[in-house]
């Protein structure tokens, strides 16, 4: 008995010693700057590394730790927030902007960048509209590099085969539905149209499906004068009626958009492979077609058009600040974090990453580079951005997006009628946001 307990004590002491040595070694490490970014496509790492090389050259004593998260944005957001919530966040965050800026700023996760951009000469290259997209409550919180816009894509081969015009520019919602009906009748083995709905569609349900319709019907989601969310208006009903016609009346869009784990992966691919006729998607998706088909073949196969309003009174696209860079408030060395961001957002990197992963550039001097001007597609994107409408950048947008996801899928799956779905939506929005934060427009 006695002998045993002696050994136990010896073992315990040894354990404690090993642990404390480990802690001491850990503590002696040099300054570390951690950069987190999500990327599934594989284009970003090259440019992130270019910026990292520039950073390491200037700060050889700083340990720059870059971590790529190969996962969909929603999963990355969960992961990031779990880490931020427990104080284990990185120094530099790379994530989509939009309403995240307000959400993160409200939570105190990110710091205002005003003092950094004011002493950064390049900041003057950013147009005011772009600056406005990353400003929340009077402070600049993020640095964008490539902006978002969206197209109505169509597969030219299918269109030619069924006798639809190429190039195609629909003049109204009816033009879209009619084209899809023609595809359904004459090419029954193809999917005519894919319209995202439900939670499975993630952010796409809002920006690639609901909003292009809703704005086209003259809808307004958030009233910036009263600070209230509009939860019912004729535009809602028109949009949902479009959903009903597409999913239930003419059965043009497959129900799988609501059940596939990542419907956008499948649907984007199908436009390229010629299995799907029409899809509203991000401008950057074209990069995938170029990647898979080559520039020439992509041009022959995949067409893109502006979204028409309900009766063709105007044409527009859904814009956004794209993926942006944040300095995390949990960083012990925010000035070093900023140094990294600065190096990523150089004229050259911004131009080249957006050529490879096609987006309109955030800083104007990048667009003037001849490499950029040589890309007809990018010039088209940049022009389309002039007609962009934006989602409201309020912190509540995440909650509202979730409710809109439910709303669209309830109608699209036939679970509820438009009236019942709206009733449910209104009561959910009241409960989520507070009855004093919502209003109904007749």
């Amino acid at each position, binding site marked *: *008995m006695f002998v*045993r307990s002696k050994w136990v004590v010896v073992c315990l002491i040894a354990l404690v010693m090993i642990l404390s040595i480990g802690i001491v070694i850990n503590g002696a490490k040099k300054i570390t700057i951690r950069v987190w970014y999500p990327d*599934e*496509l*594989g284009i970003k790492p090259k440019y992130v590394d270019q910026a990292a090389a520039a950073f390491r050259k200037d700060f050889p004593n700083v340990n720059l730790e870059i*971590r790529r998260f*190969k*996962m*969909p944005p929603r*999963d990355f957001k969960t*992961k990031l927030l*779990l*880490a931020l*919530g*427990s*104080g*284990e966040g990185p120094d530099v965050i790379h994530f989509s902007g939009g309403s995240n800026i307000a959400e993160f700023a409200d939570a105190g996760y990110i710091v205002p960048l005003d003092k950094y951009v004011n002493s950064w000469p390049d900041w003057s290259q950013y147009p005011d509209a772009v600056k406005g997209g990353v400003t929340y409550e009077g402070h600049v919180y993020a640095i964008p590099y490539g902006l978002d816009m969206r197209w109505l894509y169509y597969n030219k081969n299918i269109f030619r085969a069924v006798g639809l015009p190429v190039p195609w520019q629909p003049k109204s919602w009816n033009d879209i539905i009619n084209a899809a009906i023609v595809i359904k009748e004459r090419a029954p083995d193809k999917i005519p149209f894919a319209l995202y709905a439900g939670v499975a569609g993630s952010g796409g349900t809002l920006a690639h499906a609901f909003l292009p319709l809703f704005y086209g019907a003259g809808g307004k989601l958030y009233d910036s004068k009263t600070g209230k969310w509009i939860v019912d208006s004729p535009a809602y009903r028109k949009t949902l009626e479009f959903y009903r016609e597409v999913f239930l009346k003419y059965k043009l869009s497959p129900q799988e958009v609501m059940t596939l*784990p*990542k419907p956008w*992966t499948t649907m*984007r*691919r199908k436009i390229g492979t010629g299995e799907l006729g029409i899809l509203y998607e991000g401008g950057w*998706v074209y990069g*995938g077609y170029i*990647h*898979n088909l080559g520039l020439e073949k992509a041009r022959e196969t995949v067409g893109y058009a502006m979204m028409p309003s309900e009766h063709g009174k105007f044409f527009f696209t859904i814009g956004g600040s794209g993926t942006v860079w944040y300095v995390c408030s949990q960083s012990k060395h925010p000035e070093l974090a900023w140094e990294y961001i600065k190096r990523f957002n150089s004229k050259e990197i911004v131009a080249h990453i957006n050529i490879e992963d096609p987006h309109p550039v955030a800083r104007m001097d990048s667009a003037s580079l001849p490499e950029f001007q040589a890309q007809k597609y990018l010039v088209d994107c940049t022009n389309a951005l002039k007609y962009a409408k934006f989602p409201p950048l309020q912190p509540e947008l995440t909650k509202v997006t979730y409710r809109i996801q439910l709303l669209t899928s309830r109608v699209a799956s036939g679970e509820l009628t438009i009236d019942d779905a709206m009733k449910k939506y209104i009561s959910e929005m009241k409960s989520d946001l507070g009855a004093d934060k919502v209003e109904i427009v007749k």
Partner: protein
Amino acid sequence: MQRKAQLILVYFIFIAILIYFSLPSLWLFLSVFNAHAAPFIEIPKKPTLINFVKVFKDYNFSTYLFNSVFVSTITMILVTLTASLAGYSLSRWQSKYKNHIIYSILLLRTIPTSATMIPIYSLMRTLHLRNSYLGLILIYTAGQLPFLIWLIEQFFDTIPPEMEEAAWIDGSSYLRTLFSIVMPIAKPGIAVIAILSFRAAWSESVLVLVLIDSEHLQTIPRAFYEAIRTMGGSYIEYRYEIVATMGLFFLLPLMIIFLITHKYFVKGMLGGAIK
């Protein structure tokens, strides 16, 4: 004649059940050897082992494998030690409250992880025990203790106390008696709880989602979860064969453990149901 009809009927049912139960697993096993698997079940035209190579080379799987083995083994040791001590104490303790304690321990077992995962996240974040093996191991251990204490207590109940007393009278200390007399007899029971706790820690996939973010701490369940969510990539096709290979590594140890310990396993799992 009647026997023949009976045989046909029985085999008809057998085949129907076999199709239902084997098809998904067969698909997994076949996909592993296919260079480009589809969701449709097909025998690989050119069987290949390339997926095993890829999983280890391109997906950092050896780290996950090591982490899983490490966490499960330490959990197993900790559970086995504390549960057998507690089970023995409970078995030999004489009190009118004893049954109450045993039943409240069993009651704890009925709480599902889904009910405690959110508080566990919030608690571990407050204690700064997220993203550490220590936190994961402590949570896993505590989660399994109630059931396994109960199981091993039943086992100690079958060991006659007279032997211990004889040892005391011979001048042996309590601890010594426990380790030299009781534990050897209880070996089969201890083996059962060791294996059950290893299995539970190995396949636990909920808490690891909310407790671990760090790449180098990821275990197989966490890596597999991320694989099924992300293997698509934006333009890249869903790599069924890669996910299937990870799934196979996830499943295989459980199959091996089951084959070795089938008899105890069934008894252990049924727990309270069969006496």
